[in-house]
């Protein structure tokens, strides 16, 4: 078992996680396309993908709505889909607004929150809000039950863990015991307004200024009716992530640092008892089988074949460099598999063309959806063909 379709068998949700720059968006789109090709109705949620990928999927606007990728468009690029492929570009701010609208007890409290300046900053700028809104949207789509599979491309955080930590941070922010302090008539808000400020508060006011504290107090007041609703919702979102029908795929690159991060992220997933499905390593340099880059006979053999010593030398050096990278990648991936005590490591080769359209996704899927044996055969051809 090591094809993406095996890993995602009977799963409702696939979450692609990993640090920035490892090809998460491309991998998510490829997985969604591949699963749709196998007959499922799939929706991929992505955050601000590169324009061209969005264009090729027929997504022109960021409007927080799922759109079906036209089967004709897919067919035109040689991708046959038995199921349906849908895609959505997540708008974190709009999702947060929708959430507030849903949780608000009445229109007045909704408008008070939406109009609050602190809220406007939080909903777009607070670290973790984008991550949490991605989960929130996932939860919403899952509850609606319109798709067989949801694929989430997690936001580009510096640290993959930001994603797991997001609901906790956000709910801590809007619930917290200290928040109750604001709500009590004798709480901070009252004290700020009144004259009985403690020494600490006086000092604090000296540093941040009165306005900011008053604005925050106003924000928390406006939010007070929704705290319980937010809390309950966050709990449900968290249990969805831990559900056995959810699957986390860790995406990484073959260099030392991304591998370290993947190992770390896997450990955190296990600690948090979240369902880990496997690792996808992108842009792997496959070694040409059974060949050494520094074969002493090779320069002469190349010179004979090419009839040009200088060209033969450059070809040899280039090959040595490539084989050295391939050996590094192989060693890193071996370490990764050992650390995770897992065999579910899918290697996608460093392809000659950089992937940014449906044809490229189909090329990636030859590896993602291959069995172990097929993948080895494909890779061997890459190295030696």
């Amino acid at each position, binding site marked *: 078992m090591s094809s993406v379709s095996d890993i995602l068998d009977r799963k409702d949700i696939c979450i692609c996680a990993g*640090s*920035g*720059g*490892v090809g998460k968006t*491309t991998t998510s789109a490829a997985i969604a396309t591949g699963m749709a090709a196998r007959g499922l109705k799939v929706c991929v949620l992505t955050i*601000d993908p*590169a324009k*061209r990928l969005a264009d090729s999927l027929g997504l022109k606007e960021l409007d927080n709505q799922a759109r079906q990728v036209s089967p004709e468009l897919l067919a035109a690029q040689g991708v046959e889909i038995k199921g349906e492929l849908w895609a959505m570009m997540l708008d974190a701010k709009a999702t947060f607004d929708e959430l507030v609208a849903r949780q608000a007890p009445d229109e007045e409290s909704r408008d008070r929150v939406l109009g609050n300046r602190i809220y406007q*900053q939080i909903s777009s*700028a*607070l*670290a973790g809000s984008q991550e949490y809104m991605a989960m929130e949207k996932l939860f919403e789509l899952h509850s609606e039950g319109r798709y067989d599979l949801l694929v989430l491309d997690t936001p*580009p*955080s*510096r640290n993959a863990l930001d994603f797991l930590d997001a609901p906790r941070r956000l709910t801590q*922010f809007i619930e*917290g015991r*200290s928040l109750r*302090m604001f709500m009590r008539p004798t709480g*901070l808000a009252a004290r700020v307004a009144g004259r009985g400020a*403690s*020494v*600490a*508060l006086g*000092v*604090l006011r000296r*540093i*941040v*200024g*009165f*306005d*900011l*504290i008053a604005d*925050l107090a106003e924000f928390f007041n406006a939010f007070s009716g929704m705290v319980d609703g937010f809390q309950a919702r966050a709990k449900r979102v968290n249990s969805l992530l831990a559900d056995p029908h959810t699957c986390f795929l860790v995406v990484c*690159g073959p*260099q*030392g*640092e*991304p591998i370290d991060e993947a190992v770390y992220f896997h450990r955190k997933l296990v600690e948090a008892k979240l369902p880990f499905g496997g690792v996808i390593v992108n842009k792997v340099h496959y070694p*040409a089988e059974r*060949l050494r880059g520094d*074969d002493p*006979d090779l320069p002469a*053999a*190349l010179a004979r*074949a*090419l009839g040009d010593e200088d*060209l033969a030398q450059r*070809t040899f050096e*280039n*090959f040595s*460099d*490539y084989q*050295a*990278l391939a050996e590094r990648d192989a060693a890193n991936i071996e370490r990764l598999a050992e650390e995770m005590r897992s065999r579910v490591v899918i290697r996608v080769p460093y392809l*000659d*063309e950089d992937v*940014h359209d449906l044809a490229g996704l189909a090329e990636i899927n030859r590896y993602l959806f291959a069995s172990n044996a097929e993948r080895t055969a494909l890779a061997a051809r890459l*190295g*030696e063909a």
Partner: protein
Amino acid sequence: LRGYSHGSSLFLPPREIARNCPIRELLDKRLVFVTGKGGVGKTTVAVALGLRAAAEGKRTIVCEVASQENASRLFDHTEVGFHEVEMEENLWSISIDPDESMREYVLLQLKVRAMRDMLFRSRIFNYLAAATPGLKELVTIGKIWELAQPDRKVKSGRTYDLVIVDAPATGHGIGFLQTPRTFAAIARVGPIHAQARQLDRLITDRDHTGTAIVALPEEMPVNETAALEQDLRDEVGVAVDRIYMNGLYPELFSKDEAARLAQIAEAENGAVRAAARAAVSEHGRARSQRAQLARLRRRVQTPVKTLPFLFEPELGVEAARLLARRLS
């Protein structure tokens, strides 16, 4: 307008003048943010810039934010923490921790350690500090500002000629540089408002503060770099001095040679075939990278400089040293 002082530049169109401006322009600034999307090699380029500046006799500090410790890892795997640690002659490194920055900032404001400690023990303060959006980023930038002062605020602080910041990956990157302005708007009045405005003035001071964007020669990174350049210039209002196109493959083979190699790859077997195949791939990648480089140059106003792909298993300080010499 230093570019105009070169006689020959007078005859070049404006973009060419921009393209030819020497790296001095960047290193003569007081503060440089190195930014770009994740995984493009920001840390390596930030350290390379630091090494280059240090080699030219500038007292330089490379700052990391959000405790990634990538730069110190590059040197010797020891963690530097929230201290200015000398890495080499003229080159220091610091990892800016927001909590430590906050403690330092509050102490500078209150001047009395006991008062600061009392404040940090208070629950209200801790809650507000955690709750206030962007406060962590703000105090981080505050610390960067402090490091860049000719007259340092912290006791016996060293004066640096150049402060280089390994900035957070974009997505967060623009937000990070915009924090002071956002904050000034939230706070409206009071000391934080005034200080946030001061930080914003530092970021948008085009004479003393600059940015270098690190990019990769691939379709999506090129698109994102072009968008980032525009946002930094138009939204943030910071000077964009350089785009470093990182990881460029050498053009080892001519078109004719590649065709010859492709024939060999068909005709031969074993190692010769594999080597020829690798050469054809290299040729293809080098060419497509050149096309992406040209595309980026068409789409941006900033001079785009290239850095070579390094065939090294892991990029360490030697790699950064090599890049430092190649920086232009």
